[in-house]
Every structure is written in C-alpha cells, then in structure tokens.
C-alpha cells in the first residue's frame, strides 16, 4: 500500500505511469471479481455434471412447485393460493405462509428469459438460481469487506466465500432453497449498512431498507439482521462512537424496514408484535435519546449541560422504568413469552428437545459436532481469530460490526447446525481480512529487505507472490481517483473520512516499517505456508462440493465392484403414482415425503414438510404405529387411498421409515396417549428381530415395510438393521400391495374397500369408530409454528440406529434429514 503513495509523492513524472497502473489495477480487480463469480457458479455444478439437472431433496421441491404455480397463474393468484393438495382435509394457504423471495426471484428470472424468447423451463431456472446467487453473494462479500478493510481483503474474502463448503451445501445447482438467495440478501444488507455507516448517505440507507425487505421476503433468518444491527448500534453508542452517520444508518432502516417487512404476508404484524423485533425498537428509542443528548450538548455550555443531564436523567429514568414495565408485561402476557418456538430454541438449546419433538426430530436442528465445523468452514476456523485481531488494528465502526457479527454467529451455529450457514460469510470476511493483512505484512517486509526489489516495485507492477495484493491496493486507489474526478458531494464526507483514517495509518506504517519488518526467511516461509493453507482450503472445498454435497438425495448411486449402481426408486414410485392413480386420490406417508409427493406425483397428501399442524402429523404417526385395523380406520377417515412407505432393508438404505419410526411413535404418542413408547421398546431399544415386542410386530409400519420381504432371500434379512426380521410370514387384511419399486425402496399400498356390513357385526365396528372419533376430539389444541426449514444435512449424519443401539450407523447411506 505504501509503494504507490510514495512513488506518486516522490516522482511527479511517474504520475501518468501511476494512473495507468491504477486503471490497470481496477480492470484487474474487475476481472478477478468476474472470475470469482465464475468460480462460485461453476463449483456448484458438480451435481448437474455427476447426476443431472434436477431439483434436490425435500423443501426445494415445494419451492419448485410454488414457482411453477407462480409462473403459470401469475402473482395475484399466487398471493391468494389456497393449496388443497396438501394437509388434506385442512389445506394450506400458501400465499400467506411462505417466504416469497426465492419464488419471486426465480419467477422473475424465468419471466425475463421468456420475454426474450429464451425458452428455458421453470425447472432449469430453479436449478441454477442458487449458483447464480452464490456468485452475487461473493460479490456482495467483496463489497462488504472492501468497506471494512479495503479491496485486497475484499477480494480474498470473496474468493473464500465463493467456495466455502458450508454455503456450497445449501446452494449447489438444484438445491433450490430459501437460503440460496437469503445469504446474498444477508451479506448485501450488511454491506449497505456498513456503506451507510461509512458515508452517512441517506441514499444508501434507503437501499439498505430495500435490501432488508428482500431479506425478509426470502428467509426467516432476517431476525438475525434486525437483532444484530441494533446490537452493533448499541455497541457503538456505549463505546462512545455515536455519530450522525450511525443515526442515518439505523433510524431509516428501522422505520422503512419495519414498514416494508410488514408488507410480506408471512410476517405481517409480527414485524411489530413479536419479541424478535423488540430489540430494534428499544435501540431505536435509545439512539433518539442519545441523538437528543448530543444535540443539546452542542447548543449548551458544559455547565448548563451538566444541570440538564441531572434533570433529564431523573425524569427519564422514571419514564424508562414505566416503558420497560409495560413492555415486560406485554411480553409476559403472550403464551410463549412472545418468542416463537424456533427462536426460543436458539436462546435455550434444550428448549426444542424438551417441548417440541417435531423440531427435535429434524437433524439439521441439532447442535453441530466439532468435525462439522472443520468440514464446513475448514481452515477458516483457524484464520478467524487472526481476522478478529486484524479488525482491532485499528478498530473502526465497520470492523467492530464484523467482530460482533462473527461473535454472534459463532454462538448461533453452536446451537443449531443449520445456522452454520450464517457463520460462513462472517468466517470468510474475517479470514479474508486476516489473510490479506498477513500477506500485506509479509510482502512488505520482503520488499523492505530486498532493496533492489523495493526500488523496482515502485515502477514495476510488483513481485509475483504479491501481484494480486498490489492489484488490490491499486483498486482502492482507482476508486479514490475516480471519486476525486467526479467529486460528488454526497461522497465528500466519506472520502474525507477515508483519508482521515488512512493517512495517519499509512504515515505510521511508514514510520513503523522498520519495526514491523520480519526476517526475510521467516516471511518467505510464512508466505509459502499461507499459500499451502489456501491450497489445502481449495482442495477441501472442491472435494466437498464434488463428493459430499452434490447428491440430490432423490436419486442415489453406489459404487460397487461391478460398476455404478443407480437407485432411482423414489422417482419410479412418484412417476407411478402420477400416471396410474386418480388425480384426486389421497396419499398418506410420513411427512418427509409430502413435498416430493405433491410436486413429483401431483397427488394430495395428508402431511408434508411444512410441519405446521402437529396434531395432523401425530394422526399419521398414530396410524403408522397402530395395528392394521385401527390404522385402516384412521386412514379411511382421512379419505386416504394409497399409503407410501420407504423401506431400505433390501438395499441397506438407512434413512427409511423404520429408522424414523421412533419419531412416529413419539409424535403420535404426544397427542394420542394410547400410543405408548414403551410398548415398542424391548430393553429400551426399538427392535424388529425376534426379540421385538408384539406391538411392534403388529403395527402398520412393520407390516407394510416387511410384507412379502421374506420372499426376496428366504430369510428376511434386513440390511439396515442387520438382523433377520421377527415376523416373516403374514398377510395383510385391510391393505393390498399395488406397487413396489425396483429395489423395494418405496412400497405403495392401497386401502382395501370397506367390507359389506354383516348384520351381527355392525354394532361392534360402530363402537370402534366412535371410540376413534372421541379420541380425535380429545386432541390437544393445535399449536402452530412456522415451517421447519428443510434442506440438506449431508455432513451431519445422525443415525437413529446408532443412538438407539439398533445397528451401527451406516455411512454409505444418503444424507439424512430426519433422525
């Protein structure tokens, strides 16, 4: 950084040369950014190349279906969409319960392309939305980090983010989920906040509100923003960093942002009524008080000010106490203390497992393990502390924000493995700063100790190892030069401040040069080590993208001695349902397969991955854990015609319904007390072998999974549980098998039609029906929580069987969503 400054000051003839170099640097950094975008996009295409261009997993299928609806029927129909093909017979108001950001984004892209007569299908657009937005996210990271620590750090952070595995896991091509666009929105909102903080421009403040609006549209994680920014504002105020720029960065965001957020149907009045948003309002009041104080301080003499302070404090305290009391009373009066279940489980990690089994049942809501940190952010985990230190040298408003961001996201990622995604950008930014600063120090000391070289570098573009670094520095200069030439009044203040910050720092750097210089050998070796570290990171990221996170989970492959095997059973079953059942038939399955059934088979389902009605899920769980006749009655009362079970016993697919059965019993038993978990347990374990309890061997799930299973090998050996099944020969009386896929992974049964009533038996069956209906009436009141964010959980293969001691966790299995 010092070299160009010195040259421009010392030799005026070099001025032209220097502007040329600045321009060259600008172009270079532009192309580097372009390449970073290409990298971010193309590293996510492994799934398309290795598998195919297809939507992945569970939630993306729902988003895909919503997008299809949007492109077909238009935006107004979309807002009013009542979906009667799910949660039968309740239905679901999609328009009012879905975060529309992702859908609207993809819908807009599709519309734009089609209006240019580029006939891409909705599916193609959906598949590639995530990689495109990853490129945007890495550019947003560049902008954010540039605001904090200059263009060099910005480029480093951008390249780190482009391939951070944690983010790749959510944004490979085909992973069409909210997080794909939300991370971009998150980083971009933070960038605009920092930009406003640095410039004090109302223009950026407005943009910031709009970016925040986009974030609210996209993901429930927007509460992170609306809590983190107030925290930072509070931090600034407390540390005496209050300025009018801070006020402009914050006040418009709260007012405009809250108004805009309330426009999103799924948020609505929650934007002012739930506790997640209260912190921002509290800080909003505080910043006004502080602003008033600063204003009064400005117009009063110090003596008068002291008097005023004592006056105001005594009066203000009273008012504050009253307001706080009212707030606390309001919060306390709501049943969950105003916090939604998921937010509460963020604050109290044990909350979910204690109270909401359905949240606990999703593996991505578990706390992460240590290896998952290494898997997901890799070497960044070691660079983060260095980056935090670099942020304190010197501490600015922007760098304090980064420190706060990393600190809070580390906490949240520790609570819920899914939130590792929020940590990833923070880790990339701090690591980018750390790497860039380290390179800066090492190259400077090398240059300082090689006098021949140092004189050369003043003219030359720089030595090879630090070429990019130089270019990055140049980029800053170019921008500055451009600003000077334009001389925009709005940027003046910002520029002044920049110079204010940078001038002394460069001066002191020049003075400290001698002190900071490291031994030549040490710096060369350190540089090499850093390069190795970076190389290791790249290798790991590419491996993670290619091997760990690219499996679409609806089509599985396995390598064996005789080549590649493809297990396409899920789509086989869904295609069968789609073409060979009536369009209005109802299909019951465990909720995991709800989204896929509605999207791929186009059939009505009873429950799906939007787990908004626990009672309904419990009804299905109860039916699955009941004996055949009771189950038939429950399903018949729900108009179900087909039942779909996933069974991995033949090929050893570990995340099948038998392994999820624990949760069916637990969730079912939570609502319908006649299902008792101990009835299914032998010595505290779920077993399906000869030691299994009679309740287990007679429940519907067992029967549907193992019906005719013994015909495959003569013994009935289950390859997931690694045991012979307990009951081998049995017949189904109320269900008939209509379809079983190639590898037996999906089995579809049909409810047999009701038998003709025989006079003598009428009474008996009647009493049975009435008992079920009365038990239904006694269901607990519905309680509702937002949609369980779905998505992939590849690295974190919790295995129910390992927990329960059924069998060792099978690692060859596909990613598991539910444990």
């Amino acid at each position, binding site marked *: 950084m010092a070299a160009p400054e010195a040259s421009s000051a010392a030799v005026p003839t070099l001025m032209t040369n220097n502007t040329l170099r600045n321009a060259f640097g600008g172009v270079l950094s532009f192309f580097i950014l372009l390449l970073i975008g290409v990298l971010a996009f193309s590293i996510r295409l492994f799934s398309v190349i290795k598998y195919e261009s297809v939507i992945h997993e569970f939630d993306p299928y729902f988003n895909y279906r919503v997008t299809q609806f949007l492109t077909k029927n238009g935006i107004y129909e979309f807002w009013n969409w009542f979906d009667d093909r799910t949660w039968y017979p309740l239905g679901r108001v999609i328009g009012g319960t879905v975060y529309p950001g992702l859908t609207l984004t993809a819908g807009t892209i599709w519309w734009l392309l089609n209006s240019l*007569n580029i006939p891409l299908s909705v599916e193609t657009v959906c598949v590639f939305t995530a990689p495109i937005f990853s490129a945007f996210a890495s550019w947003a990271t560049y902008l954010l980090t540039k605001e904090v620590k200059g263009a060099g750090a910005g480029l480093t952070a951008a390249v780190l983010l482009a391939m951070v595995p944690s983010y790749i896991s959510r944004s490979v091509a085909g992973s069409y989920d909210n997080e794909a666009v939300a991370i971009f929105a998150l980083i971009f909102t933070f960038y605009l906040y920092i930009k406003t903080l640095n410039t004090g421009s109302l223009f950026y403040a407005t943009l910031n509100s709009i970016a925040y609006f986009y974030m609210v549209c996209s993901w429930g994680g927007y509460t992170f923003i609306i809590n983190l920014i107030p925290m930072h504002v509070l931090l600034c105020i407390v540390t005496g960093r209050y300025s009018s720029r801070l006020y402009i960065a914050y006040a418009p965001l709260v007012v405009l942002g809250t108004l805009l957020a309330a426009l999103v149907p799924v948020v609505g009045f929650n934007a002012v009524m739930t506790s997640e948003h209260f912190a921002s309002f509290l800080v909003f009041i505080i910043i006004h008080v502080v602003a008033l104080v600063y204003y009064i301080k400005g117009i009063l003499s110090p003596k008068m000010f002291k008097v005023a302070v004592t006056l105001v404090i005594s009066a203000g305290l009273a008012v504050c106490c009253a307001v706080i009391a009212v707030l606390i009373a309001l919060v306390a009066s709501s049943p969950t203390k105003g916090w939604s279940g998921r937010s509460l489980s963020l604050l109290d990690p044990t909350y979910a497992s204690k109270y909401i089994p359905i949240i606990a049942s999703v593996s991505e809501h578990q706390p992460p393990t240590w290896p998952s940190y290494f898997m997901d952010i890799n070497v960044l985990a070691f660079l983060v502390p260095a980056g935090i230190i670099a942020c304190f040298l010197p501490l600015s408003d922007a760098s304090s924000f980064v420190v706060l961001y990393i600190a809070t996201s580390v906490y949240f990622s520790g609570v819920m493995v899914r939130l590792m995604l929020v940590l990833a950008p923070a880790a990339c930014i701090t690591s980018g700063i750390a790497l860039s600063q380290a390179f800066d120090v090492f190259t400077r000391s090398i240059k300082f100790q090689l006098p021949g070289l140092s004189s050369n570098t003043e003219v030359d573009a720089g030595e090879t190892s630090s070429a990019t670094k130089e270019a990055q520095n140049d980029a800053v200069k170019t921008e500055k030069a451009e600003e000077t030439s334009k001389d925009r009044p709005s940027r003046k203040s910002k520029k002044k401040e920049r110079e204010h910050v940078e001038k002394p720092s460069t001066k002191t750097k020049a003075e400290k040069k001698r002190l900071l210089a490291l031994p030549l050998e040490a710096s060369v070796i350190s540089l090499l080590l850093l390069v190795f570290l970076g190389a290791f990171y790249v290798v790991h990221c590419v491996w993670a993208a290619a091997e760990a996170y690219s499996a679409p989970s*609806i089509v599985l492959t396995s390598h064996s001695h005789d080549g590649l095997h493809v297990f*396409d059973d899920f789509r086989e079953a869904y295609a069968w349902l789609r*073409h060979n059942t009536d369009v209005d038939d109802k299909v019951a399955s465990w909720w995991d397969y709800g989204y896929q059934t509605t999207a791929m088979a186009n059939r009505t389902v009873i429950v799906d991955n939007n787990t908004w009605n626990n009672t309904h899920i419990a009804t299905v769980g109860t039916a699955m854990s009941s004996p055949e006749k009771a189950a038939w009655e429950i399903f018949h009362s729900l108009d179900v015609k087909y039942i779909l079970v996933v069974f991995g016993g033949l090929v050893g697919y570990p995340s099948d319904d038998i392994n999820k059965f624990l949760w069916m019993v637990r969730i079912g038993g939570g609502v319908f007390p006649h299902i008792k978990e101990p009835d299914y347990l032998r010595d505290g374990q779920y077993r399906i072998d000869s030691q299994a309890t009679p309740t287990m061997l007679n429940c519907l799930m067992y029967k549907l999974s193992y019906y005719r299973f013994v015909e495959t090998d003569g013994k009935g050996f289950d390859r997931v549980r690694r045991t012979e099944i307990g009951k081998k020969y049995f017949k189904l009386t109320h269900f008939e098998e209509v379809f079983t896929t190639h590898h037996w992974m999906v089995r579809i049964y049909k409810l047999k039609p009701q038998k003709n009533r025989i006079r003598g038996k009428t009474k008996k069956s009647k009493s049975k029906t009435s008992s079920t209906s009365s038990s239904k009436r006694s269901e607990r009141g519905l309680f509702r929580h937002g949609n369980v964010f779905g998505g992939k959980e590849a690295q974190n293969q919790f295995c129910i069987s390992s927990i329960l001691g059924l069998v060792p966790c099978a690692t060859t299995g596909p990613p598991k969503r539910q444990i």
Partner: protein
Amino acid sequence: MEGPIRAREALALTLFSLLFFLSRSSALHDLLISNAERRIDLSSHIVKVYLTLKVENAGSSPASEVVLAFPPSQVDHLATVEALATKGKRKKTTFVRLEVKPTELPDAPNDTKYFTIYLANPLNSAESITLEVLYMLTHSLEPFPAEIGQSESQLVYYRDSALVLSPYHIKQQTTFIKTPSTKVDSFTRVEPTNRAGTEIKYGPYEDHTPYSFSAILVHFENNSPFAVVEELVREVEISHWGNLQVTEQYKLVHAGARHKGVFSRYLLARLPPRVHSVYYRDEIGNISSSHLRTDSRKSELEIEPRYPLFGGWKATFVIGYGLPLQDFLFESSEDRRYVNFTFGCPLMETVVDKLTIKVVLPEGSKDPSAVVPFPVDQHLETKYSYLDVVGRTVVVLEKKNVVPGHNSHFQVYYTFKPIFMLAEPLMLASAFFLFFVACIAYLHIDLSIRK
C-alpha cells in the same frame, strides 16, 4: 354360447339384406365380386387383414372405381388401407399401387363407411381384375376377462363378420383367421367352419347379397404386449447451423388386460444413424435406464420405462436427439429446400392413437408445404424459440391410428434465404455493443447537480 350368437347373426343377416333392398343404388351394382378371399392375422395386437378381391364388371359401362365397405366400429380403428392391382399371371405378376380415398355414399345402411379404390385403367364391361387390399386395425382386440393375475395368460375377443362386407354381390368368399397360438377358447360357427392348428376357416360361402353381415366372435389367447402410444408429439426443429433437433413426447399405455404380467420392460426405438446428444427423461427428470447402440445404418435406443408397465398402466416420457442436418435437408432449387424425414413412431411394434409431427422451420422461411404419402391433417403454427423476433413457422401434421406401416418418408418444402442465419448473432452483437457504449457513456457523463 354359440346359440344366441347364431340367432343374432341370423337377425343381422336379414336386417342387412332388408336394408339392401331398401337402399339399392344404381351405379354400384354394375360390378360384382366373383371371388373374395380374406386372411385376418391376429398374431400381434395390430390386426392385419389381407383381402383378395376378384372384381368383374357385369354392367355395360366401364367402371373406374371400386368401393370397399367397412362397418362403423372398424372405421374408428382403421389405421391404413392399401390396395394393389395385380397384373399378369403366375410368376409374372406385378403389382400396381392404387389410390384409396375415404368416400361418403348416400343411403349408407347402418352408417357403413366407404373407401374408394381408383383403378389405374377403367374396367371395361365383362372384364375382371384382381385387387389386393391390405388394411390394419388397432384396438380391435378386447381383453376378456378384463382383469387378470400376474401369472395368468391373457385372453382377448376379436369381433368381425364371417362375410365380407361389401356393396357388391359376392359369388364366393372365404375367410381365414390366424390366431397367435392354438389356444382358442371359443369361436362362432357359421357353417361351413373349420379349425386347423392356428387357423380358423370360414367358408366358402356362395352368393351373398350386398351388405351381408354375419357377426362372429373369436376368443383366443394373445400374450403379446399391447404397447399403445396414446399420444405422440414429434417436434423436428431445423437449424441451418447444422443440426436437426428432434423431441418426441410419448404417452405410453399398456392396453392389455388390467394387471397383466410385465410388458417387455425394454422398448426399442429405431433412430436414424449418426444420432447424437440423445436424452430420455420425463417431467421429473432423467430416466437412467437406456442404452444406445449405433452403427453406420441405424441407431437403436433401448429404453425402459421408469417402472414395468402392467396392463392398464401408463407412463409418459420424452426422447430427444440431434441429427446432422446434411442427412435430412436437401436443396431442390434456388432458395427452395426440403427436409426429408420419417413419419410414424420410432418405437417398434407400437400403435399410436394420435401422432402429431411438428416441423419447426428456421426463422424467416416462407411458403411451407408438406408432401405426405397418405392423408393427414395439416395446419401451420408459429413458435418462438431462442431470441426469435418474428417466430418460426411450424408445419403441423396430425394423424390418428398410426401403425409401423406408416414409417415412410415425408417431405416439407420451404424457401429460406441464408442471410437470415446471421440475424440472431448480429442482434446479440449489437446488444452487447450498445451495452458497452452505454457503460462508456455513463462513465464519462457527470450527472452531479453541484460542482
């Protein structure tokens, strides 16, 4: 079982002869058929009927048309009617293809439908000619029982008449029905009737009046897969940059008895040689079970539906492939080109209920006209594809009841100026140019209000 059928057929017979007397039309009855031999082949699910007619002109004026009659139930399933005139005797026999067209005749009894054969040379008085007629029927075998278990064999009904339906007097006629195996559950007897091996012989019958009809029913075993493509849309897109892109959308159904044993899991599609970038998918993604074998004369694509098709089950899928343009596109004159492509369904041994072929001509082509060897419905559409401004002309050909016999070539002629090929690249180039100009302009314009 045979009793009631016999009664019914007797009734039909009288009814038809009655109708005949009511509706005698003059022109038709100059001709008479001295001998008719019919061979009905029931070995696959496509019914092939070979009819040999010896036509005599008993009138005084020369006749140039011979009319064939079909009962209305057969007309809906009629895939193709071809007629050949035989010339010469014994070994020197040559065949001349004759034109056959559906015609409407007034006073058709019982909605009988007609096809007219146009003779090459008018048949003079007292002369005779031998005509070979081939027609194919689809969906004419009705599974009975309609639902069977996996291991049972499939039995089907075939309904027809023991007598050839004709507006002419037939002096002598015989009908042979060939069944795929010797397993024939039952068949209607219209004496004299013989059964030997896989063949049932009806006749010879002497001197039957026009529109004689005698319903027969054959119940026999037929285990061949009933592969029916309910709807096939083939889109052929021509790009003058050297590629012919074909997309075929199938709606396949197994029309056999419900829940019949596995329908050959493999289907064979015969594609043109030098085929490239083949894909096989459905609306939820790629179907991984397919094999492509290519040699210099043909390409064979072996495909497997996602799930085995049991009787009554359906599946849909799309096959797409690219072909080198020079194999199919030819210049006929200045700027006038034609594309030569196969009609019909590439899948072997399947019936297509409704086939739509869309030939998408390049943007800017004019005066399209299609030449198809048999009657089809034609109309034009416009399609917008990559960056089109005026849209591409699409020649749409539609035909119902397509059988493998229809796999012949058809041509679409159109006029195209090569300069139109450059339209889209130039458009893109100018768009980028304007974008860069706009960027340069933005960087050089000072929009600030205050200096």
